[in-house]
């Protein structure tokens, strides 16, 4: 196929050529960035929490009477016993926060008491000896808390943390050379030392927000019930009995005492709901970008079909002449395919530069990563194929123009 005559013909419909190339370029730029956003968001969403989400739910309980810490503590112990007796419940633990909740307690963790620069953030989970079994998180080193080690405290008190269990990620960051077991760390923000007695498998921090990304899997488990106006109970149902347990547990709590508030809206949430709430923005953004990309590709394809059809209609006579002079159907078909390919290549070349430029600008404006070239490559191939696919129908119609068309001069 000779390219020269195609270029010569293009000069005669310059505006249309430029418009298609421009449309391909803009579409590529937007679709590349949209796909990249989708990938980034889905990568966030698919991060593991480390807990056995399918059998887990959480009860958010407010104490209705202005209780003293002692009364809250007594009521919490009674609640925990009552919940553990339910047939549909496997285990229960008190909590101040939990993975994907969105807010909670985080502290800077120090390796020396007088470290000034705080460099390492971690979620602080107030737990008891049932927490690991409830969450379904296993220990990779060391031991669990014993029931006698579990105390209770109010938030302003110095943290009761002479023994702590830490997550794998935190252990590896703090002690890259060897085991964290038996090491002394400072988790309370003050100068009280804590000994690491166990290291858990993967356990996510309480928030999936971007500011926590670097510390997303840092967690310190402190053996204490936190006595505040709001208490969470993490409840693990027996396999397959999640719905029953979610019904039974609040009833059992109200049977214990009516002076509590469990909101109808978010008082009892399965971990599936917790996950949905935590990543709602990310999933929504991915859906939106997906819709925009699909509609955009469809409109660009339709635009190419429209303009090429017009060109075919305009050139029926020339096509007839070429056919009469010996060009085969295949020649005509490949003429239009090649013409589209040339326009497409120009378009994607501009589009690739545009895509990278837009991404660079977005990186400065928003919390966003650099666009990987693989996405540009995928986008380029997709748009070239889209163009060839779109031009196929008009090109086949052009190749069906009979040679006799040459003689029909109005």
């Amino acid at each position, binding site marked *: 196929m000779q390219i020269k005559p195609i270029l010569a013909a293009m000069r005669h419909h310059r505006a249309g050529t430029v418009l298609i190339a421009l449309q391909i370029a803009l579409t590529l730029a937007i679709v590349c960035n949209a796909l990249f956003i989708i990938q980034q968001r889905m990568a966030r969403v698919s991060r593991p929490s480390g807990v056995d989400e399918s059998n887990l739910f959480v009860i958010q309980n407010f104490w209705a009477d202005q209780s003293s810490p002692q009364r809250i503590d007594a009521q919490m112990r009674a609640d925990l016993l009552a919940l553990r007796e339910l047939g549909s419940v496997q285990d229960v633990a008190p909590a101040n926060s939990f993975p994907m909740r969105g807010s909670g307690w985080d502290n800077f963790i120090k390796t020396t008491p007088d470290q000034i620069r705080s460099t390492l953030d971690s979620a602080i989970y107030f737990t008891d000896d049932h927490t690991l079994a409830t969450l379904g998180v296993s220990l990779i080193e060391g031991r669990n808390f014993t029931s006698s080690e579990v105390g209770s405290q109010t938030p*302003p008190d110095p943290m009761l943390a002479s023994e702590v269990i830490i997550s794998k990620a935190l252990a590896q960051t703090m002690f890259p050379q060897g085991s964290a077991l038996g090491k002394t760390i400072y988790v309370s923000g003050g100068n009280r030392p804590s000994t690491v007695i166990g290291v858990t498998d993967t356990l996510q921090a309480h928030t999936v927000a971007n500011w926590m990304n670097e510390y997303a899997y840092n967690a310190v488990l402190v053996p204490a019930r936190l006595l505040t106006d709001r208490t969470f109970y993490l409840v693990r149902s027996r396999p397959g009995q999640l719905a029953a347990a979610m019904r039974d547990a609040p009833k059992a709590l109200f049977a214990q005492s009516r002076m509590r508030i469990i909101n109808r809206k978010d008082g009892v949430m399965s971990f599936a709901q917790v996950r949905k709430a935590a990543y709602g923005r990310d999933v929504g953004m991915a859906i939106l970008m997906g819709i925009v990309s699909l509609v955009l590709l469809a409109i660009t394809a339709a635009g190419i079909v429209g303009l090429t059809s017009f060109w075919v209609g305009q050139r029926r006579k020339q096509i007839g002449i070429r056919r009469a002079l010996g060009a085969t159907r295949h020649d005509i078909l490949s003429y239009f395919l090649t013409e589209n390919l040339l326009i497409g290549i120009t378009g994607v070349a501009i589009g690739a530069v545009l895509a990278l430029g837009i991404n660079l600008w977005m990186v400065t404006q928003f919390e966003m990563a650099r666009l990987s070239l693989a996405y540009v490559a995928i986008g380029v191939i997709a748009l070239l194929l889209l163009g060839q696919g779109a031009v196929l129908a008009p090109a086949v119609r052009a190749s069906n123009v009979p040679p006799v068309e040459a003689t029909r001069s109005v």
Partner: protein
Amino acid sequence: MLAYYLRLGLRSLRRNPVLTGLMIMAIGFGVAASMTTFAVFRAVSGNPIPWKSGQLFVPQIDGFGPTGRDPGDNGEPPDALNYQDTMALMRAHPASRQTALYPVAIAVVPADASKQPFSVSGYAVTTDFFGMFEMPFQYGNGWGANEDDKRASTVVISSKLNQKLFDGANSVGRNIVLDNRDYRIVGVAKSWDPRPRYYDVVNTSGFGDSPDFFMPFSRAIDLQMDTDGNNNCNKAPDGGWDAWLQSTCVWLTVWAELPDAAAVQRYRSYLDGYAADQKRAGRYNWAPNNRLRNVMEWLDHEHVVPQETKVSLLVALGFLVVCLVNTIGLLLAKFMRRSQEIGVRRALGASRREIYTQFLAEASMVGVAGGVLGLLLTAGGVYSIGLVFEPEIAALAHVDFGLIGLTLLVAIGATVIAAFYPTWRAAQVQPAWQLKSN
């Protein structure tokens, strides 16, 4: 003549229904995507108090110092104040009106034992709060400075809570029991919920449920009511309520009303003087690092508009541009196919201007049709926006006359702009050339 052109246009559009449909759809989708995302953006980025946003300021005082901060904070002081600095500002009162505030949550135990207790959330504020933020009252008023000083158990409740507890009757002067303590109601607010809730974007996203009550700040501190919002400490306090008040933990916001530039200047120099005093007293051992931001600067600093909202608006606008380029191409094809017709009309005496009118009229019809389609899609989009944005933000986006007008305007405007080049090309057709070739 215009009616005739419109008839001509309609006939021409009917001749290629596929091409016409394609253009209408491109315009419709492009406009709908832009308008739906714009409806969300408009809802979250608006100025909640436009007549006064330049006079309300949030002071920030650096209580953490350079070593207490994340290196990523760019030297910005924390976005809340500690209790000591707050009380110093409240005592010195360097503004015409000012309030300290923090969120509190309380349980309400109904007198009727058969009813379940429920929790309410609100703010501990001072008397100036109501005037500064121009909160409207259904019954009664806010409390006075006197009650702040006396640490009175007074409360202003929302109309929603008033409805729930008193069936909407005038409850001023009556008592309610919050956390086992009696409070006297002095005012019932009219439904008032500025969006974003600019006075507290530190502890909320700015778009959550509206507060149920307001109580005196001094009383809340007396009762040792813990904040229902964030508390950030650069070092752990010793333990107990008083140690927390003495600590550098930040959990409070102060708002000051500064009516003119001179007042702003006075307030700034007060802050600088205060920070310098603290340095001299050895409490802070770093140079003063204060900020004073008005409402819009504060909302911007706190990133109240979610970045998803901005990114999706930008992507949607890019989408609209592609749709327009598409429409330009299709209109060009459509108009140039009629070169002969144009040639004949020109030869019979039509001026270029007439050609312009004829083809722009045709394009406007595409614009109107695209606008109507865009309007339907926008309504559908805004209705189903909850699938994409979180519920409290989705609930804010709505279709109103402004949005309907803007949608039609953008659709028609965009189509006419898209039609300029094709129309210009059509008007350039040389009559002699077209006639000769046949």
